[in-house]
């Protein structure tokens, strides 16, 4: 049901990761996640150059329904944040894999792909949740 690009990696916490050519990684939340949250009304972003631990708090997304933490799926340094979300958090609803990206991180080490899901694996994971 959810739209799901094939060139991304996914987490069990409904985040997506995209490796950029410069070695950084762009992170957002999935279409499934934005659908469950409902209309986004506020996004709290990390500071630039902030160091994040794997599993540490990275951002907070708040919808009409609830506030939810977004955890860093990899360790690294914040190299960019999506400032557009400050005034237009609904970008996450309308374009979760594009204009609704949240943070870009420069990883501090190798990315453990074994801890992440392929598009097919994530699709299956979501289908099981929907059952």
């Amino acid at each position: 049901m959810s739209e799901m690009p094939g060139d991304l990696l996914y987490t069990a916490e409904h985040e997506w990761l995209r490796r950029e050519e410069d070695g950084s990684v762009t992170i957002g939340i999935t279409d499934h996640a934005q659908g469950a949250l409902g209309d986004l009304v506020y996004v709290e972003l990390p500071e630039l150059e902030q160091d994040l631990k794997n599993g540490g708090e990275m951002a907070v997304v708040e919808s009409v329904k609830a506030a939810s933490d977004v955890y860093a799926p990899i360790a690294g340094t914040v190299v960019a944040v999506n400032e557009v979300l400050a005034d237009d958090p609904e970008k996450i609803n309308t374009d979760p894999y594009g204009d609704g990206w949240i943070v870009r991180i420069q990883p501090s080490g190798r990315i453990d792909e074994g801890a992440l899901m392929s598009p097919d694996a994530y699709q299956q994971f979501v289908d099981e949740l929907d059952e």
Partner: protein
Amino acid sequence: MDRGAADQVRLPPFIFAAERHELMGSSTPLFDKHIEAGARIVDFGGWNMPLHYGSQKQEHHAVRQNAGVFDVSHMTIVDLSGGRVREFLRYLLANDVAKLTEYGKALYTCMLNAEAGVIDDLLVYYISATQFRLIVNAATRDKDLAWIRDQGQAFGVTVDERADLAMVAVQGPNARDLAARCIAAQHRDSALALRPFHGMQAGDLFIARTGYTGEDGWEICLPGVAAPALWDNLLAAGVVPCGLGARDTLRLEAAMNLYGSDMDDVISPLEAGLEWTIAWEPDERDFIGRAALQALRDSGSRRRFVGLLLEDRGVLRNHQKVIVDGFGEGEITSGGYSPTIGKSIALARLPAGDYDHAQVVVRDKLLNVRIVSTPFVRNGQIRIDVEEKHDE
């Protein structure tokens, strides 16, 4: 840090878990209609109810600008009858049904316990000198019915729960005009002539000019079997289906209390902004909770119940701590994002005192709020001064 807020759930496990169990509860006669309209169904007090049909914000705006319809069939309708029913309700309720003398007239009231805590808030309709209708909350159904039956025994009152009835709320500036097209022609003129807080029977329908959104509109009780056809007709007339999500943001903007959040069994109406619903006169009327309520009133140390506007970025949520420098601490009882204002607003119970600014603990930050008069929004208009700056 103390995260404290019940609404501040960690997204993935909690929300998804709640939705996986969606079909465990009771369903209203309109359940299939909700699925047809693309609803996201959630559990609400044991009921499978629509949270939204795609966008809660769009539904909210539809009610402020045009017309929306809510399925509120989960609410409990109780018909009371008996020769002493009026006398009974004058004892049971903090507002005074003696104010009701015309057929169909409605009154908003609290039902208190002996300690002046609120058992529930409800609407009572006058049908005749020996018949009244109560509409009480869904989540409080069991304790309300037990209390009413228990207290009513001595008055010989017959308590008839109308589980056969469904209920829809059609709300918005165009709600009555659009809904009138969906009722039998012979009732249209009289239904459109209803004044606020008045109701009437129109064939199978009981139509009342009441609501929980701060907009004009009707609440309609009707046989459950007839509800899907009315729903279809309303949607065909251009009324937008709206879920419980929009219902909550609309009532918050209208500063209408939500039972269980803004008041409960241990909070009196005096500390929940509901003093206006207490009928102190006549002095000799003895109602349940009166003595405790008077003692609280005379003690003079009651907490304030106020509206808050968030001046910083962020979202206020239920149970967040409020700090009032020099006065103490309080708590947000209902908080959220106001789609009409575009900022976060809240209702809060705060320490007694004369002040107009406070701070709210949101995660690891202190955010500035200003105390504003309520309602925040009424009849499509923002009623507060949004732009006044915080004095540094």
